[in-house]
């Protein structure tokens, strides 16, 4: 075992040096790292590292707002012996994940606190890249339940919810008002509203009805899950079993396919991620647009400032259901000074810090009370809608091989949207694949 571990370390060290050969030599080697040590819940509190205090690091994507550095500075001023160093990784979620996995596979102690995307929880926990957290030391009251669920794997808490995210329906309030309409709650209402608006509002005559994120990437998984959930189906049910071939799930996919076919969603949306869609909405090319809360501030500084508003997502037969986004803080298994790390995470998740972070970055907080905070509501008028979106949001499948699952979902969806596969056949095929992937 220890020999194997050493082999693995050497392998990976050698591999990272020969970056040019990365493709020829993408081996891992050895069987160390995760060899069957059981980790019963609460075991972390016995880990001596949880008594250790001292300097730690915190690893996340680009700190675009600069606010995380402010928070870190604030902490460092108060705790000169337990300083935190911020390590910024790439903008791309995939690359962040890669670097964190690489650090864990080499059992490096460089990373202490990891900012995990909610969909990595299962993978990081099952591979024991991150520690189970001592539940008795963390007070979870006041957190939105879906955010706690997103940090939990097999009834064990692995992370502290940091930020959350839920989808919103952005709409052109000026056009809807001119046509005398209320924001739609179902897809049919949305389609009818579009027809009315295009007929009555000159400016909107050439606009497309709706658009979300339909490029083949994680955003497509989010959007198709919302369509499926909104139709009353689920891609995976509450116990995690795949139910993609249920009639409701197929109805969700059929709706999206038909929306592309009849032009409700423009063909161009097949290449849209968040930014392309936002651009189209800001350019006045869309009446309705599904996106995350971050768009609000940006759109408020664009040509459509004051001409748009947000509503909960629509669904096929009733109100829609958002996919849950967000990030959580976890502690790397191979880190030192985990005592400091735990304290720092709890401090970060406190109400005051979350509030200052929300004000500075517009990231959605994970504490319920903040959604009725007057200062936040004044700055972000959508807080109430966002809270509703997060409270009813569904997590994406919680599986170890999430990468394979999300790719299978994207494969089935994208080929249907491009008109290459029929919805029924696509999801039947997806069901077979998911049955194999999800144990």
């Amino acid at each position, binding site marked *: 075992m220890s020999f194997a571990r050493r082999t693995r370390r050497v392998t990976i060290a050698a591999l990272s040096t020969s970056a040019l050969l990365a493709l020829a030599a993408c081996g891992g080697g050895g069987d160390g790292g995760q060899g069957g040590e059981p980790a019963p819940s609460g075991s972390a509190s016995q880990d001596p590292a949880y008594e250790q205090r001292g300097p730690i690091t915190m690893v996340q994507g680009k700190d675009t707002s600069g606010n995380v550095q402010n928070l870190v500075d604030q902490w460092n001023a108060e705790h000169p012996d337990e300083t935190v160093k911020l390590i910024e990784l790439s903008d791309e979620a995939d690359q962040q994940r890669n670097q964190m996995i690489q650090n864990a596979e080499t059992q490096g102690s460089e990373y202490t606190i990891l900012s995990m995307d909610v969909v990595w929880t299962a993978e990081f926990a099952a591979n024991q890249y991150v520690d189970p957290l001592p539940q008795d030391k963390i007070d979870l009251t006041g957190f939105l339940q879906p955010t706690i669920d997103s940090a939990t794997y097999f009834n*064990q808490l692995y992370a502290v919810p940091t930020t959350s995210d839920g989808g919103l329906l952005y709409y052109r309030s000026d056009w809807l008002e001119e046509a005398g309409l209320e924001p739609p709650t179902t897809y049919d209402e949305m389609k009818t509203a579009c027809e009315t608006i295009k007929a009555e509002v000159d400016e909107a005559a050439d606009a497309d009805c709706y658009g979300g994120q339909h490029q083949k990437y994680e955003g497509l998984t989010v959007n198709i899950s919302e369509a499926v959930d909104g139709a009353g189906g689920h891609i995976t049910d509450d116990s995690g079993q795949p139910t993609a071939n249920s009639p409701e799930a197929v109805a969700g996919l059929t709706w999206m396919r038909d929306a592309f076919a009849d032009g409700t969603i423009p063909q161009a949306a097949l290449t849209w991620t968040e930014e392309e869609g936002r651009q189209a909405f800001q350019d006045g090319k869309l009446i309705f647009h599904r996106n995350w809360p971050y768009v609000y501030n940006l759109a408020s500084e664009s040509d459509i400032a004051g001409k748009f508003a947000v509503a909960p997502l629509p669904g096929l037969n009733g109100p829609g259901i958002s996919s849950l986004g967000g990030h959580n803080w976890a502690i790397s298994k191979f880190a030192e000074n985990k005592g400091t790390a735990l304290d720092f995470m709890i401090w970060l998740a406190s109400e005051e810090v979350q509030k200052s972070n929300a004000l500075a970055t517009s990231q959605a907080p994970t504490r319920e009370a903040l959604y009725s905070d007057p200062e936040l509501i004044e700055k972000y008028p959508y807080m109430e809608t966002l809270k509703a979106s997060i409270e009813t949001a569904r997590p994406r499948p919680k599986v170890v091989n999430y*990468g394979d699952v999300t790719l299978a979902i994207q494969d089935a969806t994208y080929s249907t949207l491009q008109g290459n596969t029929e919805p029924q056949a696509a999801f039947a095929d997806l069901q077979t694949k998911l049955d194999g992937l999800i144990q």
Partner: protein
Amino acid sequence: MATVTEASRAVQPPPGDTHKRKANVLSDGQGKLAAFLISPTMIVLVAIVGIPILLSIREAFFRENEGIDPNTGLLQGGEEFVGLRNFTDIFAGTNNVTSTWGTLDRFINAFINTSLFTLVCVLIETVLGVAMALIMSKAFRGRGIVRAGILVPWAIPTIVSALMWKLIFDEAGIMNRILGAQVLWLADNFSSFWAVVIMDVWKTAPFIGLLVLAGLQTIPAEVYEAAKVDGASVWQQFVRITLPMVKPTLVVAVLFRTLDTLRIFDAPYAMIGPAKYSVETLSMFAYEEANATRYGPAAAYSIVLFLYIVLVAFIFVKLLGADVVGDEESKALREQRRRKKAEGKLAGSRTGKQRTSITSGGMP
């Protein structure tokens, strides 16, 4: 410094030791010193190239355990030896994907994409590259600017040009405005394939152009003058003089481009995106597998790609006689030895004959 005599003595072996001599055609008796001097480099190379390659070959025969403990949800971990299964699974048809080429195994699909990219890109690049070289070699005003202009795409890092072309090929981008049509280049269809071809040709045709230009400049002007005197047309000059004389350079340039394009990764990955099956190449697929922490299959696919590249390089060298190493010296020495052997047979054994050294470094 070795004198000519010493050098030749070293080359002349004791009688009866002919096959040792064959291996050391260039040796001047300083083999041990040379080995000592280059050993640091060799040690580094072994550490950063040799060992990782060996380990990844080993890895290709293993697979991670994917079993999950039903109570804790933790991975059981560890690896098992699977023999050739990582290779044979390519043909098991368990991982089918749908692309422009129909429903195929993901590996086979990637293999087809890789080969087609190579064929199409290199073909177009060769034609354009030669044309560029011909233009660059002509003397005209502003030649310097044209030369620099043609080389700019080649100097830009691929990842940067991929992102640049991503903007051009955006559904609301310049390309669609020029065409006046709405082509979804960045989706996953046949136009995505061509988007990659266009970008790759734009980027690397100048490379072939540059190498061919170097070849063109070695052709003496007198040859063309003579042809002109003989009344050869421009086309005849090109086909009968330029092409044959530039062929050695051109073949090497095409070989380099072929080997390079077989590894194509950043253009389709950064521009079109991962898991787009109409552009997914072998490098991309191997990368995606490693990304999914399936190092065994990833290593296996990389090895297949490696063997494929070796095969193509071999065919090139054998069929087109590409002289990649360009080791004139050892060739000349081998030739000389062959001649001498023939001479020796003719006139009985004559030893101690001095040779003229071709190595400039060997002369005092």
